[in-house]
C-alpha cells in the first residue's frame, strides 16, 4: 500500500517535534515561582525563624544565588561562607550588620576587590525586597559564621517603599542636565576617562552610561567630591580620578553635573 506523502511528512514532523519535547521533559525541570511577601513587622520572631526566612529569601525572591554561592568561589560575586564573621572587618569603622545592610541597599558603596560592580539594590525592582525581608536576609548572612543581632530598627524605615511597581519618590536635583553635560565635556574633563551615553570615549574609568540605574544619587554626589573615599571600581586603576572637584567646580556646576549623571539610565 502506498502511504500518502502528507502522512509521511506528518509522521516525520511529529517524530522530530516529539524528540525535542521528550528531551526537554527529560532534563531537570526548574520552575520560576513568584516570590511571596514576608511581613514580620509588629510580630514576635526568634533569631532562628529569622535566619530560616532569610535563607529562603536568599534562595528564592532575593535571586542572590545567581551570583553568590556559600562555600564556592564565583566569578561574578564573592563566596559568602563566613561573611557573618568577616563583615565587621571588611570596611573600616563599620560593624557587621551595618556593612551587610549597606551592601544590600547600596551595593556599590564598597566593591570587594576583583569583582565587577553589578549587584542591584535589593529593595528596588525587580528584586524589591521589603523591610522585613531585608532584615531576614541580613540575619541569615550574619548566621554564616557570626552572631545574629540585627533588629528591625537596623533596617531603614524607607526600605521597600518603591517595590513592586508602587509609586516611589523621585529624587529632584536642582541642576540643569544640559549645563551638566557641558561641564562633563568641558571644565570637568570627565570625558577624558569616562563614556556617558553618546558622549565621551575614554576607557580609563568605568562607563557611566547607566550610572543612574545602578547607583544612588548619594553615591554619585559623594563620588565626585571624594573619589578615593568611595573606593575604586574593580578592574580600573586606583587614584586616577582627581580629588579636587570640590574646589574647582562651582556649586552650580556641581549640581548641574549631578543632574546630568542622573539622566544616564
Amino acid at each position, binding site marked *: 500500500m502506498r502511504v500518502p*506523502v*502528507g502522512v*509521511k*511528512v506528518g509522521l*516525520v*514532523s*511529529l517524530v*522530530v*517535534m*516529539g524528540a*525535542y*519535547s521528550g*528531551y*526537554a*521533559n*527529560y*532534563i*531537570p*525541570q*526548574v*520552575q*520560576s*515561582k*513568584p*516570590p511571596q511577601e514576608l511581613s514580620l513587622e509588629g510580630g514576635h520572631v526568634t533569631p532562628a525563624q529569622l535566619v530560616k526566612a532569610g535563607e529562603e529569601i536568599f534562595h528564592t525572591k532575593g*535571586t542572590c544565588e*545567581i*551570583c553568590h554561592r556559600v562555600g*564556592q568561589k564565583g*566569578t*561574578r560575586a564573592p563566596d559568602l561562607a563566613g561573611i557573618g564573621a568577616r563583615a565587621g572587618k571588611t570596611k573600616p569603622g563599620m560593624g557587621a550588620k551595618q556593612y551587610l545592610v549597606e551592601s544590600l541597599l547600596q551595593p556599590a558603596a564598597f566593591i570587594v576587590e576583583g569583582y*565587577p560592580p*553589578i549587584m*542591584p539594590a535589593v529593595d528596588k*525592582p*525587580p*528584586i*524589591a525586597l521589603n523591610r522585613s525581608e531585608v532584615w531576614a536576609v541580613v540575619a541569615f548572612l550574619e548566621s554564616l559564621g557570626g552572631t545574629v543581632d540585627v533588629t528591625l530598627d537596623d533596617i531603614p524605615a524607607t526600605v521597600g517603599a*518603591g517595590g*513592586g*511597581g*508602587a*509609586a*516611589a519618590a*523621585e529624587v529632584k536635583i536642582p541642576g540643569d542636565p544640559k549645563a551638566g553635560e557641558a561641564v562633563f565635556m568641558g571644565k570637568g574633563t570627565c570625558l577624558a576617562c569616562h563614556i556617558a551615553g553618546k558622549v565621551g570615549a575614554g576607557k580609563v574609568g568605568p562607563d557611566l552610561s*547607566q550610572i543612574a540605574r545602578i547607583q544612588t544619587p548619594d553615591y554619585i554626589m559623594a563620588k565626585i567630591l571624594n573619589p578615593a573615599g568611595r573606593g575604586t571600581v574593580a*578592574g580600573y586603576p586606583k587614584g586616577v580620578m582627581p580629588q579636587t572637584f570640590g574646589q574647582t567646580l562651582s556649586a552650580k556646576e556641581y549640581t548641574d553635573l549631578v543632574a546630568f549623571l542622573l539622566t544616564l*539610565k
Partner: protein
Amino acid sequence: MSARRRAGALLVLLGLAVLALTLPAAAQDAAKEPAYRAFPLLGSRLAVWAIAQLHLNFAAFILGVPIFAVIIEIIGWRTRDARYDWLSHEFVKLTFAAFSTTALLGALLLFLFAGYYPKFWTYMSSIFFPTYGIYAALFFAETFTVYLWYYGWDWLSGPRKGIHVALGVLSNLFGTAILLVANSWVTFMISPAGITESGALKGSVWAAINNYTWMPINIHRLIANIVFGGTIAAAYAAFRFLGATSDEERARYDWMGYIGNFVALSAFIVLPFAGYYLGREIYAFNQTMGITMMGGFMSWLWIIQAILIGVLFLGSNYYLWLGMERIPGSERYRRYVPMMIGILAFGFMVWATPRSMVITLDEARAMGGTHHPVLGFLGVMSAKNTAVNMMILTTFLSFVLYRRANRISTRSWAGAGMLIQWAALVAAAVVVIFYGVYGYFVESLVRIGFSVYQVMAVLGAIVVVMAIDIPMFRGARSTGAIRWGTIAPRSQYVLIILAVTFTWLMGLMGFARSGIRQHWHVYGVMVDKSVDAATPAIGYAANVITVVTIVFFALVMFIFWLGGLSDRGQAGAHGHAPAPLIAGGSDEQA
C-alpha cells in the same frame, strides 16, 4: 483568490481598524474591571501564549517571504529570466494566502489582552496609545500595496515592471515598519524605558519605544523572519516535490526548494551575531536579567537551543551535500565532506555541553562540584563562541563548494584567487580558535570583547572569499548542467525537518523572551499577580511549543491547499505566466 475571499479579507481589515480605534475606550472601561479574568479550560496565560506564538509565526512568514520574493523578482527583471519571475510570484502567492489568517490571529490576541488582562492592557495603552493609529495606518498601507503587487503582476509587466518592483519594495518597507512598531510594545515589557519609577510616561513615547532591546530585536527578528520564510517556502516546495507526478514538476520544485533553503541559509549564518547583540543589550539593561537568562533557571533552555541550532546546521549542510550529487563535476569536492562533518559534529557537541549540572548533593560531591572536571570547560562562552563560529565557517565552505560544483574558472588568476580564499578561511579559523583559547586566561570583561574579534574574522573571511569568488567564476566553464529533480527524496525530508525545527526554535525563543521577565508583566514596573504568574519549567513549555507548532503547520497546509484550489482547473487562466521548464536546463545554482 475569489471575490468572496477578497471581500472576507477586507472585512477582517475593517474589523481591525475599528478595533484599533475602539481599544482606548475598551481600555478605559477595563480600568474599572478586575485585573484578570480566567479563560475557560485553558487558562488565560496558555490562551495568550498559543495565540501570540501562532500570530508571530504567521507574521514572520508574511513579513519574511516578501523580502526575498522582491529580490528574486528584481533578479528576474534584470536578467530577463522568466523562471525567477515565476518563482517570486509563487512565493508571494504563499504569503498572500496567509495574510488574512495573520490579521485574524492578531485581532484575537488583542481581544485576549483587553478581555483577560484588562489592567495590563490599560497600562500598555497609557504608554503606547499614540502608536496604535500608526500601526493601523501601516497595516492598511501594507495590505493595499501587497494586493496591488500581487494582482498587478501581469498588468504591471513589460515596460511597467519597474513600477511593479517598486510596489514590492514599498510593501516590504511598510511590513518592516509594522514590525518595528509591534516590537516596541514587546521590548518595552522586557526592558522598559522612558518612564518614572511609578511607571508613568515621562516625556515622549519615543523614549519608551527606543528601549534597550528594541533595536536588537528589530534586527534579530528581521533576519529570523527571512530564515523562517525561506524554510517554510522550501518545505512547501519539498512537499510538492514529493507529491510530484512528472519530472518537470519535480525539477521545478527541486529548484524552488533549493532557492528557499539558500535564502534561509544565507540569513541563518548571520543570525547568531544578531543574537549576541541582543544578549549584550539585555545584560546592558539589567545584569540580573541577563544572568537569570543565561545562568539562572533558564540555563537549560540554551542547551535545547544548541541542539536545535545544531540540527539546523547539520541539516542545511547535509541538504547541500545531497544537492551536489545532482551536479556533474561535484565529485572532486566529496573529499571535504568528512572533515566538514567532523567540525560540525564537534561544534554541535561543544555547544550542547552545559556549564553546570543540576545534580544531587552526593553527585556534586563525587564530581567535585556542579561543574564537570573536564567537560565543564566546554560549557563556557569561550568554547561556545568558538564552536558556533567554526560551524558558520564550515557551512559557508559547504555553500562555496556547492556554488562552484559544476564550474571551472577560466580566469588566469584562478590559482592565486583560490589560494587567497583558502588563506582567508584558515586565517579566520586561527583567529577564532586563538581567541577561544585565550579567553580562558582573561577576565570576563575582556573575554566578552573577544567574541567581537571572532565574529569580525568570520565575516571578513566571508566577504573576502565572495569578493574573489564572484569574478573568478563569471563566465566559467561548465562541467554539465544541474539535473534538477534528480535529488534524493530524503533531501526533501531534510527541508521539512529544517522548517519544523526552525518553527519550534521560534517557539522556544518566544518562551525565552517572555520567561526572562519571570513574574513581571513589565519588568520591574508591573507585577504579574495572576494565578499564572509562575514561569513554567522547560518541559511544560516544550509541550506547549510542540502543540502550537502542530497547529501552525496544520493551518499552513490548509491555507496552502486553499490557495492551490484557485489554481486548479484554470492553469493559464489566472493571468500569470505558466510555470517555466527547469529540468536539465540550467548551469547555474541561483
